[in-house]
């Protein structure tokens, strides 16, 4: 049955597909106006409010189009898009994880909108690159963020350890984590689950060590650090099954003294653990002589679905391209606008926690971009899991992961 089911899915048949069709048509059109349907996977109240504010603003700003949005669960998002391509049941605009965009451009989901009236040169290079292929534009970055180092001030004070800052090196970080690990508390935790969510968090250690997604062996020091810290017990092994929300829940509960996580967790911490006394700084750097640690860019892009009439989608992008619209939306969303100037709003620069993330973004790089990113991600994350569970030595895991990565390209 599973074989049959998969076959049905692969062909764009079956119920899932009909659901998509139903969703696509759910939007109601106002008299005489052209519809612009947007898909997103936003779940929190703040995110939903942000989308509604954007859509209301767009609908009031002009008379030609009326926008609406449809929620598709994140776990099914890429599957539904793939099925949509096969069946032709697609929205006009898709908000999706930046690292998945290259694959979907290659799959033919998005249309060339290089002629749209967008201020391309105002965007931060990394996120903009992830919306392009062969010099053509297929959308614009929607939000940008990265992970940084959260620390629980109370736990640091109790252990008599100084807070981490921009000068903290890997060695300092390891000593801190060791000193904080006691009474059921782990020094550090991050998300290392068996999906791209794990790759997103683990990959920065490899880059900071001098490697890259195609050059694993130069980053073997990251493997060594992870394995040794997990064996010492100061980096929790539990993270092999942790998603980013799992990590944040454990940080809020005081089970881990430091976490690697993104700014989108801040609203959740404020709501669920308002008394948590915490700070955020950049991720630890390789050594005293090295520059700031590399982080991996996260965030969403807006891609325009390839249709004969893409005017509505382009109009929405042009509306969002206005810096003040973008800034207001991102304040609600808990991420940063993908424009260099827009991110300099005092809302972010006056807040030490937000400022730490903005500093970290300066040395952040995108995943890929490559249409084969999902295959790279899967191979790379297997390597991290091998090291973290001590299934292989760092050297062996590096050699094997390198071979796996080489076989992809």
């Amino acid at each position, binding site marked *: 049955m599973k074989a049959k089911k998969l076959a049905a899915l*692969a062909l764009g048949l079956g119920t899932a597909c009909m659901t998509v069709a139903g969703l696509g048509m759910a939007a109601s059109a106002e008299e005489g106006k052209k519809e612009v349907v947007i898909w997103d996977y936003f779940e929190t109240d703040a995110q939903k409010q942000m989308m509604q504010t954007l859509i209301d603003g767009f609908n009031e700003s002009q008379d030609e189009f009326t926008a609406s949005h449809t929620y598709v669960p994140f776990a099914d998002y890429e599957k539904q898009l793939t099925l949509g391509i096969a069946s032709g049941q697609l929205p006009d605009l898709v908000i999706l994880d930046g690292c998945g965009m290259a*694959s979907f451009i290659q799959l033919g989901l998005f249309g060339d909108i290089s002629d749209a009236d967008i201020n391309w040169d105002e965007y931060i290079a990394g996120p903009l690159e992830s919306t392009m292929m062969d010099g053509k534009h297929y959308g614009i970055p929607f939000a940008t963020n990265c992970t940084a180092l959260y620390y629980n001030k109370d736990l640091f004070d109790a252990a008599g350890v100084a807070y981490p800052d921009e000068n903290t090196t890997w060695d300092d970080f390891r000593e801190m984590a060791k000193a904080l690990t006691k009474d059921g508390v782990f020094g550090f935790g991050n998300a290392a689950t068996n999906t791209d969510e794990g790759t997103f968090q683990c990959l920065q250690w490899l880059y900071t060590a001098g490697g890259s997604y195609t050059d694993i062996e130069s980053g073997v020091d990251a493997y060594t650090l992870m394995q040794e810290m997990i064996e010492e017990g100061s980096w929790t092994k539990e993270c092999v099954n942790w998603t980013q929300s799992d990590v944040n829940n454990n940080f809020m509960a005081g089970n881990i003294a430091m976490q690697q996580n993104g700014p989108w967790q801040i609203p959740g911490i404020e709501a669920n653990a308002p008394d948590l006394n915490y700070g955020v700084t950049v991720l630890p750097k390789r050594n005293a002589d090295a520059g700031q640690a590399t982080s991996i860019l996260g965030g969403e892009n807006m891609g325009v679905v390839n249709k004969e009439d893409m005017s509505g989608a382009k109009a929405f992008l042009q509306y969002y391209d206005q810096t003040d619209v973008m800034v207001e939306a991102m304040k609600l969303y808990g991420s940063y606008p993908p424009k260099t100037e827009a991110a300099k709003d005092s809302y972010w620069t006056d807040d030490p926690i937000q400022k730490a993330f903005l500093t970290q973004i300066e040395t952040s790089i995108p995943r890929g971009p490559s249409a084969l990113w999902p*295959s790279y991600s899967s191979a790379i994350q297997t390597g991290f899991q091998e090291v973290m*569970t001590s299934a292989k030595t760092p050297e062996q895991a590096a050699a094997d992961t390198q071979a796996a990565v080489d076989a992809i390209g």
Partner: protein
Amino acid sequence: MAERHTRYAYKEGHAMKRKRKLAGGAKMGFLFALPAAVYMLVFIGYPMIQNLILSFKNVDVFSFAQPQNQKFIGFQNYIELFTSSNSILTKSIINTLIFTVGSIFFQFIIGFGLALLFNKKFPGCSFFRGMTMISWLLPVTVAGLLFKFMFASSGGIINQFLMALNLIDAPMEWLLKPGTAMVAIVIANIWIGIPFNMMLLITGLTTIPADIYESCSLDGANKVQTLFKITIPMIKPAIMSVLTLGFVYTFKVFDLVWVMTKGGPINSTELVSTYAYRLSFEEFQFSKGAAAANVLFLILLVVGIFYIKLINEEEESM
């Protein structure tokens, strides 16, 4: 001789009558079968054939949008799945076999034990029998999440329980180590599958006439003898059905593993079903995913043919 002759004549006449009846009712019969046939053709036949065709092509992230670049490449996908160093198909088939055999063995033993128990009449019998169905009624994703929490290294109830009994000194890393992760998903699946085994076996047990047991006890057979000489041979058809259906159901399990481990750590719980999904919908290697799904299908087809043969034999012997 005369008697035999008349019996033959009767049989022949009966067969002819049946033939005539069939010819007359054939149109009606086909008409009744039509909806099922059309359904099978459209929703099962068509996707299966398309999936087979897809598995012999080179459809991936690069050729998906360019039909002119989609070429037939014969068995290339299958060969790569079995030989490429980046492919874990062989590993996932072995994992699936371990998962299936481990699950069915214990599901059957425990299910059979419970079936024998609930076949006896005792106060509250039907209530407790109903209660055991809960694990079968619970959505698999919910059961998967529950077991994920229960097997958590720190704070998981299973570790706390084992530590309280002094069976282990330190928390076990159930879902974090390749060997124990497999054990954990097998345990979860056993729990889910016990009621299925139990109910089918109870149905089998109720078909054994009580007088057989009576004459048994008169002949002085003890409990063990009765079990192995009477009960098990009498419900052999039910046992074979449970085992083959259980094999098919377990071999294609997807949601439980996806929720508990996503195939990790280090692909140690990757089953053929999760691998096929990963190839198609995460890595966009549609043709390879189709090929992996077909391998799963082929294995189940063999089991299915075995099952149909079994059913036919049973019907003939009745």
